[in-house]
Each structure stands twice: as structure tokens, then as C-alpha cells.
């Protein structure tokens, strides 16, 4: 198809480069520099979309991000949904489709909705589909009224990026005002960040034919860009939209297709000392019957398509306006040889300067458009004068201008205030809340001469017309074209009591969606004001929210995807674990740990049973490196540890350690771990893996806020020590086989002590602690030696059948011993007495953190959930962790829950732990686990199923 609407010359396109593309399956051609919209108009494609709700035929309305009507879905490597056609750069091979229509925008089955439009006004869905349940209808309604789906697959190549930047001055917009501000700041040596959403600088000057000091205005733009390019202190980006303005002058910029490697889009997070908002102004629509027909376009967009892309989207044009700017459009069209049938001006008195621009055109003042004829394209417009006379004017393009709205989105996002200006009939920036300034059209300077010395442009004058209101009017008059919100919808909202503009927005959805009401919002406000009989200032605006224009999720996420979606931590043994078939997953604090080590043909339970049997009957080894470890130094460490632990710690002598509980302010368990005294003033504290960071913060906070004079210095050494913990009856044999200069006999090296020495030739600290209930040696070495140590442990342990042990087996082993686990038994509701650990509550210390709270709670004598063991009556019946216990298994309030249930190889049955009301006094009773379709009886026991006296771990 030829480009029938393309002028023979002109425009800022490269006619030597023809681009081929498809739209709704048909092939077309355009030029380098086109947008999809300009190329479609050049090819005289009139119906480009169907509307959101009524499926009315729609064409292209605007030329930039304000486009409300034509959203497209891109296929192939550009795959994305709901892109305004005006913002899609044309490229060779582009494939685009209209959204919200089937089978095509020309013939759309959903168009039947137009016949039913009387019955489906705003709020219809919520009133009608409330019984029996909205969610029953929601999927089909969404399908009927929805937009494009998100792409099913991520881009096949390239990646998104997010980066940070800092600037003295951020300038949003590279139109004349923005360039002027950037030049001023750049010349002053400031670090300038200039970002503009368009593909080239110039702003409104790209779209019209203005001059500065008698020279083409674009010449001034090119000189300004050149000068900025020469400044090392200036970052100038095009195709970069400043879409969010956050606290403390943090602005977010989305840069599309940066010319750098494989980056698809880049998100900039810019912290600016000062922000200059030079975002220009957006033309607003006129509101009249059938103002959404294909061929009804914004006047400035018609001008832009001609001047910038060499496209005239009609042969016979009528202009409808309430302000001067449309006269320059008419002047350009006349110069291009287009037949301008008439200018309809709602004002009673048209300024002489405007008339002088179009001496040969019929200007009908005090006249409005009453209707548009033509379903899939404008055929004629109905001109209605204030005297009531009516005449139909045949045409194929209606260009209308309802005036200009300063683009105050960023200003408002900064929480700065707006005021309504009666002269401009627009909301203008008023009081800044952050360090920002609005300049140029964004500040209400709507003509070039106000911005640039020597600029020449017709003065801007307007008489607002918020909607055409004629008796006997037929046809929908749209305020928000994207959401199909008409004047009657707003009237309905007001009648139903939604008279606050925010409520009107939510009731009608006017101003929502992808265009965020750029062309229609103020007409909604004006309509509300007219209906209520109040000034616009009193109606106010709705909240401007980011993003100003749609942004890809990919750009927001940046590099965070795939393997780096979440942080992860490795130990030096991670690679060995992977090489040996471990099933890896996160096990707290971002550590990737081995869950279990399946051997050939083994499932999870088989592998866990094998690992547990090794620990109970032979020997196993696990990587205990992730445990949080801190070295504390200072004279006041003993009293500090006595304060944060519930038991006595200060009485420890060097070389020995003690298990302890940390409580929170409210006397509940915060963490557990062991403390060792290294020497007089040095201590080693270990915490649970998952709580390492929070316990570090807890200790620092106490020291900085409660005890600033105490001499306690904390150093995190979690990653300075890795450990291989050898556990099981043959652990001592493996240690001997490894070779050590430490006497391992229990008399010399007892449980809960440590020794420094060498193991397998490496400097090591051996600690006798046990988290499995078996004889254990925790061999701590520097990470630089850990991988080698691990290999030697496996080698030395081979004759004893040593098995690597994963987190799943550790869980089983600790349940068999009744050792508590944070997140299982310690769920933020229990104290030490509930867990049968009253022995850890010091009777000697005058005070410690949480002591008073726990005493008060205990004095209340309220029923408590207490830790018990449970044995399913059916030995082979597993009980789900988290399952509730109810009296008699009846449907009553729970009396507890199962915290853990594991297969015990030493007991050859399932065993579990539970928190149960008054559990300590109920040993021997039968409790009942209530599931959805089943009640499982379980015997209540002491919470220990292996070596109750602890002889093995002390052996």
C-alpha cells in the first residue's frame, strides 16, 4: 500500500530508508523516523482500535504519550502490550496488533456493546454482578473489556538495567525551556542531568514552524544541543522519560533503547540537588457528541504530523477551538495546500491577530461542533452557532483544541501544590514542597516569546469550554476516551452522591489507565464544576501518581532476575555439595544449603533416613558455617552478656562455654545459642543462622541506646570461621584419623569447651557442642582452608562410613532430641518455661532483659501452650507440621499445634513435637490432631525421644 497521506517533502524523517511493517496482519511501509502512528496515518489507516468498554471504532487522536485511543500489542522481539501507537518507534519488521478487538478493529464482534450502551453506564458491573459473587463474572468481563496481556515470554535477547545517578540539577524536558535551563546550569559548571521523553530535543518546536530572531527555532535547538554535548558536566538523554518524583528529590527516569550493547531499557534513579520541571503542556480535547470518531484529532497533533513526519491525515479539514493555538495549525495546513473548510471558534470574539494568520478561511465565531457524522471515519461535522443555526460541513478530518494543560504531573508527584489560573483556564504549579522549579509551558508560559528572547509566536488567549451542551443532543460526548467515560457517566456519579472528584474518578474510572487522563482530566473537573456550580479551584484535581507514562516491569527490576532475583550466600563447600548431588535450597539468612544428599535411586525420605542412621550409629558431617558468630571484647562484656541472656554467663571461665537463651523485652524467646569465653576480655557468641543479623543489630542497639558507657566492642566473624561438624559415635575416630594435636579424650576435653590447635594440618578451633545429641566435634577453620578440610574429613571418614548430612536430617536429629527450633517451637508466643527450659532462667541475677515481663506473665497464671512430644498411635502415620490439636478432635477451638513430625530411625516410627495447653501435666494422655477429613490420635510424652539423659553428647 502506498503512503497516500505522505507529503512529497518535509518532515524530520529519512525518506531514503524505507521500513516495512505489519499492522493487524497487513503490510505497510514507512520511513526511518516515523512512529507507528505516523506511519499508519501516512498509509491512511483510519480505524486503528476499538474502545475499552463499548468497542467503538477509534483512530489516532494524539502524537505523543497523551494518546488515549490507539493502544497496540507488539509481537516478536518487541513483544509488549498496551503501547500507545504514538510512542512506538517504527523499525523494519515491526509487527503490531490492535488491542481489545476481535477479529479486527474494522469488524469487531464486541461492537455489539454499542447497541447495549444505554444499559451499561458507569458502575454497571458493580451493581449488576454482585450476586452471587462478583468473582464469578469477573474473568469474562475482564476478557471482554480488558487490554493486552503481558508477553508470555521475556525478551529473547538483551537485558534491562537499573543504575543510579547524582546531579546538581535535573532538568525534565528538552524543549526550549528545558534546554535553556540546562545551558544555564551547565555553563555554571553544575552537574546537569537532562532527560527528555522524545527521540530528539526540541519539545513543541519539533511540531511547529516557529522562529527565533527570524531564524528557524530548530536551529537554536541544534546549537543548544551541540553546546550541551561539549560539556563534560552534562548528561543529556533522549528517549528518556522522567516518570516518578519521589521524596528527597529522587527521580526515576526510563531510558528506552539506549545505544549501548544489549540493553533494552535502562532505569535511572537520579538524586538531584535541584529539579527543573520543563515538561511542556498537553493539548486537551473538546467535549461534544461523538468526539471519539476516527478522524477527530487534537489540532496540535495534526500540526505535528505535518511538520515532523510529513503526514496530513485528511484532505478536507475543519478546526474547532476555543483558543488561538489552532489558528497556527490552520495556517500550516493552508501553506501545505490542504483544504481547510472552516474554523469553528466557540468564542464570541476572535482576536484579530489570530484572524490575520488565516485571512482566506471562514472563521465561524460563537460556533461549536454539535455532532460528528461517520461511524468509521469523519464524514461531516455539525456546526451549531449560538443563534441556533445549524449547518453540516463535509470533511474527513476534525482537528480540535480545548486549550492547553501545563504538564504538572512531576510537580504534583513531588507533593508541591497547584492553583487554578483563570486566564489560562488551567492548573499551574504553585507552592513547591521540594527543591524544584517549573519553567516554560509547564509553568504556564505557553508561547515561545515568553521563554526565549527573540521567540515569535501568536499570543495565547482562551475562553474555556468544558463541554458542548446543546438541547436535544444525541451521541456520547467523551471526557475520557481511553476509559469510555462520557459526560453522562460523570452526571450519574454526581447524582449518586459521588461528588468529590476523587470519588468521581473511582466511580467512573475517568483519568485512570495508561494515559492517566492527559487529554481529558480537566474536562472532567470542568464538568463537575459546571454541574455543581462551583469554581474549578474548589473541585480541585485528583492525585497525580507515578508512572507518568507506562514503564516496563523489566526496567524497574533492572538486573534482578534469574539467579540474582534474591540474594544468596555460599560457603566454600557449596561447590562440593553441588558436585555430590545435594538438593540445595535456602535455609535462612540467604544461605544456600544442602537439604539432603540423595544417592542413586533414593528419594528424600530414604536419603534422610540414611544420613540420620549414619549420625546415630556411625558418623556424619555437616557444614555449620552459616551459624552467626560474633567476637565481643571489653571489660563490660560479662555484665552485657548477663543482661542479654537469661542464664548466668559471666561465671564462665576461659576455654568453656554455655548454652543460653536471649529474650525480647516481653520475655519471649528471641534467639538461642552458645557463648564461649576465649580469655579474660574476649568472648565468642554464636546465634542461629537466620537471626544473625538481627541479633547483631539487637546488641548494637542496646549498647548505643541503653549502655553507651559500657565497654563492649562487637566484631562479626561469621565468615572468618567456617566449620565442619563431625558427629556420631565414631566422631572421635574420624578426628584421630584426620590428625590433631589436641587431646580429644572426654576427661581432658569435655562437652561445652573448646581447644585451639591443628586439625589435618590446619590451624583450628575445636568446639565440643552438639546440635544432634551425639558426640560432636565442631572443627572451625579459616574459610581459605575449609574446602580442603572438608575433603580431608570425607577422606578420613570414609573407612567409618561417614555421610554428609543436610538440613533435613539436622531437623530430624534435633526433633528426636527435643532441641528447639526458631520458627517451629519458638514461634514468638512462647517463653522458656513453656519449653521446659526454666533451668535457663537465672534465679541469681537481679535483672536481665525480659525478666520482669516473664514474671508478670507467670503471675497471671493463664493457661499456656507448653512443649510436649507426640507419638502417633499408628506408628506409621505422619502428622502434618502445623496441624491443629483440638479437644477430642472435635470442631472446637484449638488447644495447640504440631510443630514438627519426623520419621525417627532410632525409634522406627514417626515422632513429633507440639505446643499444647497445659502440656507438661498431660504426659501419657491422648491428644487429637484434627485434619480436614480425619482425626489422628497421638500420645503425649516428654519432648525427647533419644538419649534423654544426654550421655551420648557428653561422651
Amino acid at each position, binding site marked *: 500500500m502506498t503512503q497516500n497521506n505522505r507529503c512529497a517533502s518535509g518532515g524530520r524523517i529519512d525518506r531514503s530508508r524505507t521500513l516495512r511493517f505489519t499492522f493487524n496482519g497487513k503490510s505497510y511501509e514507512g520511513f526511518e523516523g516515523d512512529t507507528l502512528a505516523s506511519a499508519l496515518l501516512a498509509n491512511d489507516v483510519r480505524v486503528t482500535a476499538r474502545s475499552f468498554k463499548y468497542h467503538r471504532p477509534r483512530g489516532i487522536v494524539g502524537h505523543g504519550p497523551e494518546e488515549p485511543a490507539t493502544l497496540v500489542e507488539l509481537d516478536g522481539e518487541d513483544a509488549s502490550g498496551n503501547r500507545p501507537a504514538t510512542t512506538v518507534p517504527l523499525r523494519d519488521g515491526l509487527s503490531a496488533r490492535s488491542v481489545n478487538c476481535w477479529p479486527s478493529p474494522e469488524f469487531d464482534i464486541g461492537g455489539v456493546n454499542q447497541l447495549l450502551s444505554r444499559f451499561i453506564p458507569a458502575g454497571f458491573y458493580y451493581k449488576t454482578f454482585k450476586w452471587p459473587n462478583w468473582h464469578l463474572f469477573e474473568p469474562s468481563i475482564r476478557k471482554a473489556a480488558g487490554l493486552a496481556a503481558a508477553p508470555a515470554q521475556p525478551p529473547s535477547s538483551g*537485558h534491562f*538495567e*537499573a*543504575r*543510579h*545517578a*547524582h546531579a546538581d540539577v535535573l532538568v525534565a524536558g528538552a524543549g526550549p525551556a528545558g534546554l535553556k535551563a540546562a545551558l544555564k546550569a551547565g555553563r555554571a559548571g553544575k*552537574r546537569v542531568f537532562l532527560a527528555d521523553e522524545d527521540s530528539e530535543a526540541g519539545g513543541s518546536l519539533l511540531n511547529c514552524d516557529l522562529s527565533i530572531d527570524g531564524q528557524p527555532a530548530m536551529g537554536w535547538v541544534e546549537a543548544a544541543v551541540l553546546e550541551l554535548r561539549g560539556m563534560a558536566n552534562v548528561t543529556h538523554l533522549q528517549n528518556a522519560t522522567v516518570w516518578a518524583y519521589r521524596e528527597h528529590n529522587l527521580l526515576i527516569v526510563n531510558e528506552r533503547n539506549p545505544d*549501548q*550493547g*544489549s*540493553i533494552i531499557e535502562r532505569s535511572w*534513579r537520579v*538524586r538531584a540537588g535541584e529539579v527543573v520541571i520543563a515538561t511542556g503542556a498537553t493539548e486537551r480535547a473538546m467535549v461534544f457528541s461523538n468526539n471519539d470518531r476516527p478522524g477527530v484529532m487534537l489540532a496540535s497533533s495534526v500540526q505535528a504530523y505535518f511538520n515532523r513526519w510529513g503526514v496530513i491525515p485528511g484532505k478536507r479539514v475543519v478546526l474547532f477551538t476555543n483558543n488561538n493555538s489552532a489558528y497556527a495549525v490552520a495556517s500550516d495546513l493552508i501553506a501545505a495546500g490542504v483544504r481547510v473548510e472552516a474554523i469553528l471558534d466557540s468564542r464570541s470574539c476572535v482576536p484579530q491577530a489570530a484572524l490575520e494568520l488565516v485571512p482566506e478561511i471562514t472563521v465561524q465565531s460563537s460556533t461549536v461542533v454539535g455532532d460528528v457524522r461517520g461511524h468509521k471515519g469523519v464524514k461531516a461535522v455539525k456546526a451549531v452557532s449560538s443563534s441556533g443555526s445549524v449547518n453540516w460541513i463535509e470533511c474527513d478530518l476534525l482537528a480540535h483544541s480545548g486549550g492547553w494543560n501545563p504538564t504538572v504531573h512531576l510537580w504534583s508527584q513531588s507533593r508541591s501544590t497547584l492553583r487554578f489560573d483563570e486566564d489560562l483556564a488551567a492548573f499551574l504549579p504553585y507552592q513547591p514542597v521540594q527543591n524544584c522549579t517549573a519553567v516554560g509551558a509547564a509553568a504556564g508560559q505557553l508561547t515561545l516569546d515568553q521563554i526565549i528572547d527573540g521567540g515569535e509566536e501568536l499570543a495565547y488567549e482562551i475562553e474555556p469550554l468544558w463541554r458542548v451542551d446543546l438541547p436535544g443532543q444525541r451521541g456520547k460526548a467523551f471526557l475520557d476516551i481511553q476509559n469510555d467515560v462520557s459526560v453522562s457517566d460523570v452526571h450519574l456519579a454526581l447524582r449518586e452522591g459521588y461528588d468529590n472528584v476523587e470519588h468521581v474518578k473511582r466511580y467512573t474510572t475517568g483519568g485512570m489507565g495508561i494515559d492517566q487522563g492527559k487529554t481529558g482530566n480537566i474536562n472532567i473537573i470542568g464538568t463537575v464544576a459546571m454541574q455543581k456550580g462551583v469554581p474549578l479551584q474548589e473541585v480541585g484535581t485528583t492525585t497525580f501518581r507515578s508512572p507518568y507514562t507506562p514503564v516496563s516491569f523489566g526496567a524497574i527490576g*533492572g*538486573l534482578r532476575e534469574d*539467579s*540474582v532475583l534474591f*540474594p*544468596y*550466600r*555460599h*560457603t566454600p563447600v*557449596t561447590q562440593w555439595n553441588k558436585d555430590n548431588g545435594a538438593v540445595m535450597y535456602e535455609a535462612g539468612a540467604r*544461605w544456600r544449603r544442602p537439604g539432603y544428599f540423595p544417592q542413586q535411586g533414593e528419594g528424600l525420605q530414604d536419603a534422610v533416613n540414611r544420613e540420620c542412621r549414619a549420625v546415630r550409629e556411625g558418623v556424619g558431617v555437616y557444614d555449620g558455617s*552459616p551459624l552467626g558468630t560474633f*567476637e565481643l*571484647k*571489653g*571489660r563490660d562484656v560479662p555484665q552485657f552478656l548477663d543482661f542479654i541472656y537469661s542464664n548466668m554467663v559471666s561465671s564462665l571461665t576461659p576455654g568453656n562455654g554455655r548454652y543460653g537463651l536471649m529474650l525480647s523485652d516481653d520475655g519471649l524467646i528471641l534467639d538461642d545459642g552458645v557463648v564461649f569465653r*576465649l*580469655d*579474660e*576480655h*574476649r568472648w565468642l557468641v554464636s546465634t542461629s543462622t537466620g537471626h544473625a543479623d538481627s541479633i547483631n543489630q539487637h546488641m548494637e542497639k542496646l549498647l548505643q541506646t541503653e549502655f553507651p558507657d559500657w*565497654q563492649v*566492642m562487637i*566484631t*562479626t*566473624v*561469621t*565468615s*572468618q570461621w567456617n566449620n565442619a561438624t563431625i558427629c556420631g559415635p565414631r566422631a572421635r575416630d574420624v578426628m584421630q584419623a584426620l590428625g590433631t594435636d589436641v587431646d580429644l579424650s572426654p576427661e581432658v576435653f569435655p562437652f561445652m569447651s573448646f581447644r585451639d590447635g591443628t586439625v589435618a594440618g590446619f590451624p583450628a578451633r575445636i568446639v565440643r557442642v552438639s546440635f544432634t545429641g551425639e558426640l560432636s566435634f565442631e572443627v572451625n577453620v*579459616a*574459610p*581459605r582452608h575449609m574446602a580442603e578440610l572438608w575433603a580431608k574429613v570425607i577422606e578420613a571418614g570414609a573407612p567409618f562410613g561417614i555421610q554428609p548430612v543436610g538440613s533435613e536430617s539436622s531437623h530430624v536429629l534435633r526433633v528426636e532430641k527435643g532441641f528447639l527450633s526458631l520458627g517451629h517451637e519458638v514461634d514468638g508466643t512462647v517463653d522458656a518455661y513453656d519449653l521446659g527450659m526454666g533451668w535457663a532462667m537465672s534465679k541469681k541475677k537481679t535483672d536481665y532483659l525480659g525478666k520482669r515481663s516473664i514474671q508478670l506473665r507467670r503471675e497471671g497464671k493463664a493457661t499456656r501452650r507448653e512443649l510436649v512430644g507426640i507419638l502417633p498411635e499408628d506408628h506409621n502415620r505422619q502428622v502434618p507440621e502445623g496441624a491443629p490439636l483440638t479437644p477430642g478432635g472435635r470442631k472446637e477451638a484449638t488447644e495447640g499445634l504440631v510443630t514438627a513430625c519426623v520419621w525417627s530411625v532410632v525409634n522406627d516410627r514417626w515422632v513429633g513435637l507440639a505446643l499444647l495447653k497445659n502440656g507438661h501435666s498431660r504426659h501419657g494422655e491422648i491428644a487429637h490432631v484434627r485434619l480436614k477429613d480425619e482425626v489422628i490420635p497421638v500420645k503425649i510424652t516428654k519432648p525427647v525421644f533419644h538419649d534423654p539423659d544426654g550421655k551420648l553428647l557428653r561422651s
Partner: protein
Amino acid sequence: MTYDVAIVRQPLNALFDLKGSPAAIQNWAADVLPTLPERPNSRTGQASVELYHVGRNHWIARAPLEQEAELEKHLSPTNCPAEISIVRVSDTLTFFRVVGPQADEVMSIACPLDIHETEFGEETVTYTELFGLKALIMRCEDGFEFAVEQSFGDMAEDYLSRAVA
């Protein structure tokens, strides 16, 4: 590659964490350490030993790994007075160097800090955030050097390779 940089994961360094009053630190270790940096988030150097002032009464001494034993002998962490804390932390940090003409661009992907030369000079060293992780950052010849907690080393490398892919 998207950026003209070289990324090098550094071998271990000798690192010692020092805490205590400046006077007490100097009394104990003046003969082996450079002069204490006067300003927070700055560094001093003497021969191959550097000293980073990373917090109130908090420094990190850094030297090539070959000097670890010698430094430890002089700093004597186990014998130092109660008023100061010296802990060998050589294995706790993994260092990376990002060098080349576009090193600052790669760093700006990772780091929210203003690392422009006017704000972040040769002598600056500070804890900040890189890829959301706590990190120590400073300039080096033709680029930047940073360190993350050792267990995050693989992730930082993963992130960097994605950034420059």
C-alpha cells in the same frame, strides 16, 4: 560486552578489624600502622599497609596476605588491652576491582552512592550498598575496588557478569 571494563576478583588480603579510642589504638599499634585517618570514611597508607576509618572508633587495617602473620604478631589481638579490640578478619571480605574507561558506569549500576570524583576522591573509603549488599568501596588505579561479605562473593560476581554482559 556492554561496558569497557575489566572485573577482577581479588585474592585474600590481610585484614584486621580495630575498635577503640584513637589514642588507645595508636598507643598499641603506632609502629605497625599508618597514621590514623583524621576524617571518617577516609584512608591513610604507609608502605603496603592501609588503614580505613569506617566508623566511630572503628578502623580496618589492610595489607597483602603475605604480611598477615607479621601484622598479627605485631598487633597481637589476643594480648591487646581490654580498651581496644583487634580481630583478624582476612577471610570475611571478598574484594573486586572494576577498572577501565567505563568503571564508573558499572559501579553506578551496583551502588547508589555518589561516586563522582568531586564527591568521592582518592582518599575516600566507606561502607555503602552494592547490589543491595553491605559493601566497602574505594577508588583504585583506573577504577574502583569494593568488598562484600565473603559468602556473598559468588553472588556479587554473578551480578557483575550480568551487568557487563
